């Protein structure tokens, strides 16, 4: 078997920071420690060491830790170097590691992949860790952390347990009908299925974690020259869109992803809406695209005449610094992109709305795949609730179980038989 390469990466935040933790995982982790620190400390004990490169030059004085595999986070030999977090120090240590034979920088997600491949984490946890690596905002990170910590797996285990109990009751009726004990399903049976289905339903309507990746979509719309692009630039804090006094400047849809207060947003600037016969061919296409963009918006900021925007849009009065600005009765916000007036309040309100629509910090959230599996389980439970033939009820419950199993990646009927026999007095 060709030797698995040993990988390393900075596993704490980007420098500069207080400390920089560099993790090394793989068969060469021990040698890497020896090479840099000159010795291998006692397993799982932090100790202070001088890190030196190949020529003996001192790189840093760091805390080093040694975790022999397979009972480590990755399932492999693992070393940790807690260095001073300055950019130069980190770069120097990483450079020294690259010089060692068989070591290379980890690809994104590679630590997680190894942990999964080595049986340290299950499917849902792996997905959580995967998300964690790509998390850019505080909110994304908190949600990914909850999944990686096994919150979803534990929740599914709990549901699965209850489902096994329900299956056991139906199986009792099917396989032991001649026993007086289990001749009929208890009255609360359907109720219990509904209760479980309802709980799944609550998860299903929760904001999904892939929403975090896309961010909360805010679309700016209104007639030409309303000041959309200027407000857009102010919100994303860059000159992303061209602005000019010429009506019809913006011809395409422009998107920018930014984080405000740790919350991911996608702001969308659109072509000004006006009668298509006034606009040229290109602008007409732009207007068409603008209309499509409105459909996918979480919030529309409407800079046009009051009441003419899409339903639910926020009425915005823009260019409030101009003496001749037109007020609105039901204006949500009155802003000026030039003076910055009202911008803070607008952003705050957007952050508030986004927090409602996106997964709550620390709460496990489903990604698209998990959502699909869970929907399948919910659908099967719903079908089971409505069926009266216990054989088909059992089949639907089995389908729900398979969906759970696929969600976290497992399968067996034996657990169910255990539950079955633990509960009932069953003779032949």
């Amino acid at each position: 078997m060709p030797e698995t390469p040993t990988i390393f990466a900075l596993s704490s935040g980007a420098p500069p920071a207080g400390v920089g933790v560099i993790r090394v995982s793989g068969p060469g982790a021990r040698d890497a420690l020896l090479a840099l620190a000159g010795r291998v400390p006692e397993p799982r004990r932090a100790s202070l060491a001088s890190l030196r490169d190949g020529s003996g030059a001192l790189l840093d004085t760091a805390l080093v830790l040694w975790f022999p595999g397979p009972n480590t986070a990755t399932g492999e030999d693992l070393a940790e170097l807690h260095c001073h977090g300055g950019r130069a120090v980190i770069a120097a240590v990483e450079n020294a590691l690259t010089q060692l034979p068989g070591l290379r920088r980890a690809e994104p997600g590679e630590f997680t992949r190894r942990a999964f491949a080595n049986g340290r984490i299950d499917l849902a946890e792996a997905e959580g860790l995967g998300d964690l690596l790509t998390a850019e905002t505080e909110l994304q990170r908190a949600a990914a952390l909850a999944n990686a910590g096994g919150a979803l797996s534990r929740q599914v285990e709990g549901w699965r347990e209850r489902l096994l109990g329900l299956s056991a009751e139906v199986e009792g009726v099917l396989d032991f009908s001649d026993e007086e004990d289990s001749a009929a399903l208890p009255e609360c049976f359907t109720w219990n299925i509904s209760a479980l289905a309802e709980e799944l339903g609550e998860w299903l309507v929760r904001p999904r974690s892939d929403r975090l990746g896309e961010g909360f979509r805010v679309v700016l719309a209104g007639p030409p020259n309303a000041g959309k692009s200027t407000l857009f630039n102010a919100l994303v804090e860059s000159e992303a869109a061209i602005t000019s006094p010429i009506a019809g400047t913006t011809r395409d849809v422009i998107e920018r992803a930014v984080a405000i207060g740790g919350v991911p947003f996608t702001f969308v600037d659109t072509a000004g809406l006006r009668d298509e016969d006034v606009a040229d061919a290109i602008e007409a296409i732009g207007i068409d695209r603008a209309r499509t963009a409105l459909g996918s918006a979480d919030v529309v900021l409407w800079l046009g005449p009051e009441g003419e925007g899409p339903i639910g849009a926020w009425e915005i009065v823009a260019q409030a610094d101009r003496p001749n600005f037109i007020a609105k009765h039901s204006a949500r916000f009155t802003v000026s992109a030039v003076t910055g007036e009202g911008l803070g309040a607008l952003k705050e309100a957007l952050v508030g709305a986004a927090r409602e629509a996106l997964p709550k910090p620390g709460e496990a959230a489903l990604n698209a795949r998990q959502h699909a599996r869970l929907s399948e389980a919910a659908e099967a439970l719903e079908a089971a609730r409505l069926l009266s033939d216990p054989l088909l009820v059992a089949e639907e419950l089995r389908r729900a179980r398979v969906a759970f199993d696929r969600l976290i990646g497992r399968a067996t009927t034996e657990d169910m038989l255990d539950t079955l026999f633990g509960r009932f007095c069953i003779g032949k």
Partner: protein
Amino acid sequence: MHSFDVLVIGGGHAGVEAACAAARMGARTALVSFDLDAIGAMSCNPAIGGLGKGHLVREVDALDGVIGRAADAGAIHYRMLNRSKGSAVWGPRVQADRVRFKAAVQAIVRAQPGLTLVQGEAAALRLEGGRVTGLELAEGTVLSASRVVLCTGTFLGGVLFRGEERFDGGRIGENAAKRLAAQLRGAELPMARLKTGTPPRLDGRTIDWAVLEEQPSDDEAWTMSPLTSARVNPQVFCAITRTTQAGHDAIRANLHRSPLFSGAIAAAGPRYCPSIEDKIHRFGDREGHQVFLEPEGLDTPMVYPNGISTSLPVDVQETVVRTMPGCERVQIVQPGYAVEYDHIDPRALTPDLQVRAIPGLYCAGQINGTTGYEEAAAQGLVAGLEAAAAALGKRGPALDRANAYIAVMVDDLTLQGVSEPYRMLTARAEYRLRLRANNAATRLTGLGVEAGCIGEERRLWWERREDLRKMFHVKHSQMVHARELADHGLPVRRDHGEKPISEWLRYDGVTPDSLSPWLADVTACDPVLAEEMAEDAAYAPYLARQDAELRDLRASEALSLASDFPYAEVPGLSNEMVERLSKAAPGTLAAAGRVPGVTPAALSALLVHARRRQLERQRAS
């Protein structure tokens, strides 16, 4: 020196099926048993079939086995259990006359071409270079064969218990085969101990039947085997009584005298078939437990009280049965007892029931930790077919969890092992909507024909049936408009358009009978098949959904794990998991997922490493 392709030891239900199946495959086969007159004896309750078990009987029959036809020949009471539920869990069961059943088995065995019967005690296996080469009988004769199938039941270290009494031996009145047992023990096969029990037998002439609720035989015409053209025996009724509070009190007062509670028996018994003392001990609050009084034959007054297996002392047994209504003056003919015996850990077997450590040696039946005639017969069939196929360079029928209960059982046994006597249950089969007792022939007979284990008579029957099935398919695809159905009084809305018959069959209230204007001619040809085809149509949406799941399964079945897969080298697997996996030696990743205790995380680790090994081997070659 007598030479055979396959030797089968033991003339119980497993041995009979193994020997006949091997001979049907064309192997020169010998069946060795203590007493040829005891071949086909029903040791205990003369009932065949039931929930899950009826499926096994129909499947063994579909592969041209013995048990279904013999059950019909002996049947004196037919009952379709679970009739009120969906047909996939119907359990055909018969009460058989012990003497007639045995006579039928012996007639089939003796008529089987290529099968030699040898009376004697199998004393020792002959081994060369770790492989089986034959068998030595107690009186010295040596039989040679490259394949030997052990179907010796509870003969390994069997001890009988009744109250404070102990006896040596398998069943009362039979010897335990000591030499063979010693040899197997010497081979260091993994063994474990189980127990089972039997109730006292009653003299039916001393039961007051008049006060009891009768349970008549089904008045329909179904039989266990489709080759049985009609029921042959007069049908008798069973009766139902109950245990009573007074009986429970007597049991409780004497629990300490039961070997189950005194600590004399430590082995696990079946949870689904507990002794009456277990029932009282665990579920003592119950008013009383149902007991079925089942006549054992037409020419005997013996009655089998189903539901009160016990190892209490004889005097307590007497007190208890006499507290049951209708049994106040009943006489016990033979008291109940419990047996504790050794069995081989079936995880030591490969999916063809061959002992992994001793090539050429196969095990089937109770020796593998199962209980029941049907379970024994089904394993005997598999071992016989596979042993013959191996000896002749053929292939046995391709059975798997999605086409046969038989395969579900073999897979469960060889992967999960047993912690109690294994009995078939429909709950064990994840694809049970497709594994119905009434479609066993459709599922399996074709595979049997391909493998070459189906006799002439059944093959002709099956070919006719296949032709008929095609006709049914044509009829089922006829397009019929909702209006037409409504005009015939069917409960469908007139605006539901035009659909094939097969889809209409999924509608509530649309029965095959009500569709007779469109199906009458084919239904008349074969009403049983008509029912099966209608169920297929009704279950079709569920089966279609399972297809996707089965594709997933096949994908993980495609990833094979060698029997010496180095689980210890897979990082992240706990020692316990490594041990379980090494013991069960799953053949594929799908099978590994069915080994108990294997976590999702471990499975992913296994997947990755198995893939990696596969790639490396490809690269190396």
